[in-house]
């Protein structure tokens, strides 16, 4: 039987949707792969965004984010805690997702984040996607592909890590900017080069 590559399967997944560039397909592919993995912890559900103000108006950052930026400067010491809800200041049809001031200030800084590892779960991982919710509730399971505002790419600096379904906490240097991963073609806007990973719970 002819061996069909995973990429080929996932590319065909998007039929009859218009074809997208391969890196974007890889992005969607990684997250879609997660949906059928058994044994994920079923969390309470996707938190749906409350109605936004009229288009073009950018929502100000949440109170937690403001507290971390005092007079435009980072307060406290490294590593800075970053939550998924603090990453984006707002979303509009015309301007898309806008990065929060807090996130922009963290570019190049040491941060710590909590989340879940998205499959594929190979035996050792040097790269994975960290998600806000366990991937059994993948946002891409809607037929409209929304940009994922609750994921981040994580590259392990040192030894690779065994995969886990438990929540994890990573610490490392944050980098903002569009980058294509050579090995997988994955396109990430925001990455953490992590040197520490703790399994929680």
């Amino acid at each position: 039987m002819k061996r069909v590559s995973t990429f080929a399967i996932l590319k065909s997944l998007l039929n009859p949707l218009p074809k997208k560039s391969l890196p974007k397909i890889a992005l969607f592919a990684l997250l879609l792969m997660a949906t059928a993995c058994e044994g994920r912890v079923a969390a309470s559900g996707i938190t749906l965004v409350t109605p936004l103000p009229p288009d073009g108006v950018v929502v100000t950052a949440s109170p937690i984010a403001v507290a971390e930026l005092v007079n435009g400067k980072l307060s406290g010491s490294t590593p800075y805690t970053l939550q998924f809800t603090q990453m984006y200041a707002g979303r509009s049809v015309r301007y898309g997702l806008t990065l929060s001031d807090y996130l922009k200030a963290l570019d190049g800084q040491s941060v710590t984040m909590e989340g879940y590892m998205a499959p594929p779960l190979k035996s050792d991982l040097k790269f994975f996607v960290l998600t806000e919710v366990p991937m059994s509730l993948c946002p891409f399971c809607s037929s409209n592909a929304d940009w994922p505002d609750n994921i981040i790419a994580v590259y392990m600096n040192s030894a690779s890590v065994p995969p886990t379904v438990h929540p994890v906490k990573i610490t490392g240097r944050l980098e903002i900017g569009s980058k294509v991963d050579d090995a997988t073609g994955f396109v990430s806007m925001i990455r953490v080069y992590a040197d520490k990973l703790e399994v929680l719970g």
Partner: protein
Amino acid sequence: MQLSKRFRILPVLAVVIAVLFTALPAHTTFAADAPPVLILPIDQANFLPGQKFDFQIEVWAAALPSDFSIKINGKNAADVLGSQPTSSNWQFDASKTSNNAATYTFRKGMTGMVTSQATTWRQVSIKDPGSYKIDVTAGGATTSATWTIRDVGTGKAKNVIFFLGDGMTDAVRTAARVVSRGFNAGGKYNDRLYMESKDMTALGLISTNGYDSIITDSANSMSAYMTGQKGTVNAMGVYANTSDDNNDDPRVQTFAELAKEQGKTVGTCVTSRVTDATPAATWAHTRRRGDEDIIIDQALKMGYDVILGGGSIFFQPKTVAGSERKDNEDTFKAFESAGYTVVTSATDLKALDTGKIDKLVGVFSASHMNVWIDRHLYPANVQKNGPDQPDLLDECKAAINILSKNSKGFFLMVEGSDIDKQEHSMSWERAVADTIEFDNVVGYAQTWAKANGNNTLIAVAADHGHAFDVYGTVDIALFDKIGKDMVAAQAAPTAASTAAAGTAAATAAGTASASVTRVFPPFDTRLNAIGEYQNASFPDYKPDPTTHFPASWEIKYPLAVAWGDHPPYTDDFRIDKAPLDPGVVPPGGLVQPNTKRDADGVFFNGNLPGTDTQAVHTLQDVPVNAMGPGAECFSGYLDNTDVFFCLANALGLDPRTGTSLNGGTAAPTAPATKSASIPLAVLALVIGGLVTRRKFVK
């Protein structure tokens, strides 16, 4: 009298020659080492006189043979077309079918890299109706194609409104009629859909395939309606050549481009991304429908007047998270700089003074707009995509208000885009609700046309089939009760239920043949709640008499819907509260049901390849209705390419009298052809409607 021995050979020769002629294919005579030749546009192509197209000959050889010639009706093509071609070459991988399918059948069996020598004329046209035979000689063999230049129509329509219900088969229309109009006591429908009203004097059936397969997609099917040319899956406004470049394929002028040359305004109002195949096919030229950033750039270049729908991800520079553009262009800004008004919310759309606007771009969501059911019944589903999306009627009212200000008339394309998308996702309620919404716009257009001169051709069609149909109704209460009993029986099996299970297993084993043991999944007894024939009582969706939408989709006896082609999926026969794909593909595996959707529903195994997570298009012909000047052209059986000529004939459109667009349709490598410049054209129009006549060299 006996023939001399010499002449006895003649009858034998005659027989041999006759056998050879009948054995050869109709159009091609091959010599031993003649290279394959591809002629684009293909054999059997039809055009309007003066309709511009690119003419490209491919010769698959390391070099053009010395005897290479291209003739049209026996004369050199360059003389007939009045210009010299350009030459180019490329290499293509003959075993790769993704770019060009099995279209060019003499490519079958070829492997490895092939060099193609291309001879290309850009933006030529033929001005005299008639039959034109193209003969290409190469390496001692001649390959031929025949084109027909049709006569210009004599219609007197001023405007054309073309309604495209994507995937809107007759089965979908019928279900929409059940849900939105209901039945009276005599079993007759209370009313018909607007697209079925007595105003629509013509009814026909359209066959939808392209020239590469029996099953089409929305790109080449809409392209057939908009250019009069058959195409290949994923391509629009072009004939697909063998090069990997998606932008160099030979182009053919679209109906919207021709309408603009006649001074008409053109617009589209849809609920998909505005760069999706159906709206794109009204203006775009590309081998690849997925190049949506290039597609919207083409609309701007052409000066398409009104564009309304979704898809801001193809307008945002690539630095914006989620953008699908590959460059740093802010396309919204580019449209504004060109004089367009840009809006991105329903509030802003409704606040517009359409009397003061001539060019409008409205993009109301990041990707495809959400469907009527999610926008109105489950608004939490739409927030991330677009928190303030208009209805299709809001869009099209604005479009008609703006476009109809033009004294020379307009062309508007209205699409019920998401009917098809929800058929793919197998959410029938969403597909039918969008059909009702689409039909309401038909009703508005009919009223508008009758109140505004009665000189508008309105045509309502679909682009291709789907396998949706209704086979009864579901007794939801009974369905749930059987389900509860099933669960209870599994939890606490009684002697009877264990015996029943044993019998079922024994029966399964007993039906196995001596050599093969085949075990089938057990029958899901909840299916006994499906009412068929006399048990399929009329469902009462309680439609609103004005809006025609049901008060609720969750009724006691909803329609029982089946899908002729589908992935493995589960179904609880109720409306889904969020749009979800029926199947999912696990890593390295094959498709299985999406357990986030109807997790406890009845299981149906799939009948599609293991990589498909959604339903696919089907073969059936689709209906078309029409009213207004030129409507009669749509009666009877049509090939999809005939639709273009019906639209053009209704307007009496003669491309030879148009003023050519300012290079808006040229392919990137096109050499400039002689044409009247736009300022001259404007001046000519201003001085009492004089039209600049182009010189065509015969």
